[in-house]
């Protein structure tokens, strides 16, 4: 992943955080808001470098907390932790398979808010926590599972449209060259 891809990813992160704050139709309908940062982190961890993951975790987490009542910086570590686990095991993951993307999106979207809630509860804060939280976590996990393959497709499309096309292999082979004249 090059710098352009990283910048694109961060741009999508900022738009995702803004969308979560500005658009509350999903919360009206089903009582919970979907977080798109874990889906972006899945993409970054499977295709990006450690720098990309770190930047997405730090900036995405800080942007999210700046619009939220969360203590500033509390979202960074859970996001980074999910990203690092996927990054460390990405050689074992079939990253091009939609099923793998869905499963990873589901797991990341469930683990990240759980970790944030754990940090909040252990640091003395009082988030809204009850039996309804289980429903909200399910909504976030399923929403993340649906959003992750969409993110992959979207970034693949953007790379095809905006990136350089791969150079095709030439048909010239030196061992098949016909040399004319004196050898």
């Amino acid at each position, binding site marked *: 992943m090059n710098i352009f891809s990283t910048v694109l990813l961060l741009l999508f992160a*900022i*738009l995702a*955080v*803004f969308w*979560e*704050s*500005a658009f*509350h139709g999903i*919360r*009206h309908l089903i*009582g*919970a*808001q979907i*977080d798109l940062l874990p889906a972006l982190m899945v993409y970054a961890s499977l295709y990006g470098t*450690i*720098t990309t*993951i*770190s930047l997405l*975790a*730090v900036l995405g987490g*800080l*942007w*999210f*907390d*700046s*619009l*939220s*009542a*969360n*203590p*500033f*910086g*509390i979202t*960074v*570590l859970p996001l*980074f932790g999910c990203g*690092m686990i996927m*990054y*460390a095991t990405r050689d074992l993951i079939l990253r091009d398979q939609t099923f793998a993307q869905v499963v990873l999106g589901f797991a990341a979207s469930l683990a990240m*808010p759980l970790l*944030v*809630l754990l940090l*909040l509860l252990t640091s003395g804060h*009082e*988030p*809204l*926590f*009850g*039996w*309804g*939280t289980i*429903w*909200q976590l399910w909504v*976030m996990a399923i929403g993340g599972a649906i959003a992750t393959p969409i993110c992959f497709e979207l970034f693949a499309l953007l790379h095809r449209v905006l990136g350089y096309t791969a150079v095709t292999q030439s048909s010239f082979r030196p061992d098949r060259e016909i040399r004319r004249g004196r050898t």
Partner: protein
Amino acid sequence: MLKRPHYIGLGVVVLLTLTILNLPSAARSRLKQSVGSVFLPLFGLANAGHAAIGRVSDSTATHGQLVTENQALRRENQELRLQIDHSKEVERENSRLRQLLGWQQQRSWKLKLANVVLREPANWWRTVQIDLGSRDGIKLNMPVLSTEGLVGRVSAVSLTQSQVVLLGDANCKVAALVQNETRLAGVVGPYGPIDGSLVSMTYLPPNANVKPGQNVVTSGNGGIFPKEILIGKIVDAHPAEFGLSTEARVKLAADLNSLEEVFVLMDK
């Protein structure tokens, strides 16, 4: 497997996070506001988008619809003017009577209208962002109301925006009274994470005579919320754990899910 640069990256991120989390609250608040200012251009785009959608929908309204709406608004305007005149008269009478009795003059409220621009992205808090900040005179803990009733209080202030913590959040507890013969006092606090229209009123006396439909208003205790601001209506009541007190569910008067405009109660 992870290599050395990965461990270095891990260490940097952990160190940065721990540093930010352990900053003094004032510095952390300023840092939060400065990071949040990144979204200001997007606020402007969102407002422009809403305005454009509004203009499109206005332009598609038929002449007949506009005339009907205009007539209804004129009638409502006249009724409101009459109510204002009546209220002013009642206020003057109240002031005279208080003066006669030697009570402290009741301060009239100074309200400032604000638009709700963003909502809480996380599912475990209940906050909104409004488009007034310190440059508009907004300060911490100012009460926030809607036309239906109490909404919350200001919990963070930046130059151009403020965060309002809503009723039902754990950080917004209100001393309240039930408007009945005995004027029972309690504390309004969060009820659950899903239904934002319900809150719980706790620390009511055991065997409290609380009936569904009774109004719940602010008591004025605590110094943040003035008294007699409507919070909601009692839905039901039941004894708390071990029967030491009574808890009631209260349906909020203000619809927190569709807030678009709110009033901030300013210091006079």
